């Protein structure tokens, strides 16, 4: 599997020259076989992080042009803004988080063996929200929203051309 990944990956970088025809064939072969099986290749649209207010987890609310035909701008912005708010809640500095931190320190962090951190609780909330959004809004439009935690909180990715039989 991984071999394929890199084979195809090589294709992209080499093909971009546009002029090299023989080398990519070795790897393109794999890709084109897939093309025959699944005529519609799905692509991913990535929404990057917004660092304008520091290192806190926020995503850009700028609507990507690739989704123009598939999604309302407002819907997109609402989803990303809700995600931003949830992450802000997870990372909020306040009395509750300080208390949790101090309590954890005093118990030599053994308290986390029986208790979830506040951040983990909010991450579960986020996962549930994303699942919800996928079911209600994105799946009917052939899109799949992936949880940013699976991508190291780097990007929110929208996968397009999702066919039901692929899931």
């Amino acid at each position, binding site marked *: 599997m991984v071999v394929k990944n890199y084979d195809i990956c090589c294709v992209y970088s080499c093909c971009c020259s546009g002029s090299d025809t023989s080398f990519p064939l*070795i790897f393109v072969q794999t890709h084109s076989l897939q093309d025959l099986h699944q005529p519609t290749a799905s692509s991913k649209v990535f929404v990057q992080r917004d660092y304008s207010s520091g290192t806190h987890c926020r995503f850009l609310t700028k609507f990507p042009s690739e989704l123009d035909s598939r999604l309302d701008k407002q819907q997109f912005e609402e989803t990303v803004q809700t995600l931003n708010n949830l992450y802000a809640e997870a990372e909020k500095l306040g009395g509750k988080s*300080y208390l949790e931190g101090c309590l954890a320190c005093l118990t030599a962090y053994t308290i986390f063996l029986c208790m979830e951190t506040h951040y983990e609780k909010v991450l579960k909330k986020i996962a549930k929200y994303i699942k919800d959004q996928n079911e209600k809004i994105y799946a009917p439009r052939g899109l799949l929203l992936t949880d940013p935690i699976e991508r190291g909180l780097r990007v929110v990715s929208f996968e397009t051309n999702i066919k039901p039989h692929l899931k």
Partner: protein
Amino acid sequence: MKNCEYQQIDPRTLSVSPQSAQSLGEAKRQRPRRKWEVFPGKNRFYCDGRIILARQNGVLPLTLGLIVVTCGLFFAFDCPFLVEHLTVFIPVIGGVLFVFVLSSLLRTSFTDPGILPRATTEEAADVERQIDTSGSSTYRPPPRTKEILINQQVVKLKYCFTCKMFRPPRTSHCSMCDNCVERFDHHCPWVGNCVGKRNYRFFYIFIISLSFLTSFIFGCVITHLTLRSQTGKSIIQTIQESPASVVELVICFFSIWSILGLSGFHTYLVASNLTTNEDIKGSWSSKRGAEESGNPYTYNSIITNCCATLCGPMPPSLIDRRGFVLSDEAVPVGSASRMELPPFAVKSDVNMCTPSTKDMLERMVHTSDLHCLCPPGTPKTTPLVLEVPTSAATPTEPPNSTSCSGQHSIKPAADSCALFGLGTNERDSLHSINPAFRLASPSPSLSHFALNLSDSPDLGFVPLH
């Protein structure tokens, strides 16, 4: 035009797929692998991924040994005398400090410091595409920095060639662990791990409690020796009666200066919300004298800075060490190195091919323009040149190639690539040169293909399962 290229398939290359399908089947029959087993960085994992350490962790046992031996000697030789002559609280306090030191040390060493997982191939392709949308017509590597505004302060984000992403602010790539670490402070050999966002508070508690412990033991030993010599004995006699105390004195004396200094320094860093990395580089030192320090991350209040750094919410580990590798998951750059790959493709960076290969090849063969294709030599990429298996004799030296280190791997790669059963010589030479060029000038521009093909790897695997 591109579609026409796809149709020109060489049947000989079909031999790749049954092989891989077979290996896939084998992989399926094996137990599912956890993500730590295919982790691309130079870390060691124990207890089935629960514990993470840097690869070079030889100094950690020394640290542990020093602490345990010193405390052991203290409890065995000094405490009985002091309990008798002073108070029973001495070993109690010593014990509490010892537990704090040991638990915070182990916590610092075994916790993921905030490693950022490497970008998946689709993400890397997307980033490349965004970089190249400037429509650069030359094949020189475009600048790999991005400037953003953080709290009205300009911050430059650098592109990490190993992890294939723009590093978030305050993130740095640790060359010893070969990972990008968030809020990277430093790599501590004494602790055997990087110190970053997730384990900085443990590290700070460790050095603070260690300073208290060493000062406490130092004070107690001095008191012990003083009390003993008060009964009219000479210093020599006192030392002969309790030689262990001298050992403790020496250890504590030499470590106290560095530990206290380090504690003071890190207290300053915590209060001003800086990292060691930023402080050493002078990232935020005010160059324009009258203006305030340009640190955009500070809360401008010592207490808030301290609370945010030490008592803030504990971020989760992003690398998910104990998760299972899904067969249809997009594989991050570099993790393929552990899987069944042909020998030449051990490192992902080796395998990533540069764009504009044909033009580069033409230049290489016919002109002397290769110098411009070799970057100033980012440390992360050039060492990989050495890792390309050299099954060949002499590297193919194109005319006029002198200083570019990437070219030495051209010929070896060619021979390794022959394992793939590549057809024509032309294909061989083209293919062989590509990985080397990836090393030489890691600047692919995937503008034409990234969007259309970027996700085919995922779907592409499905029919081959």
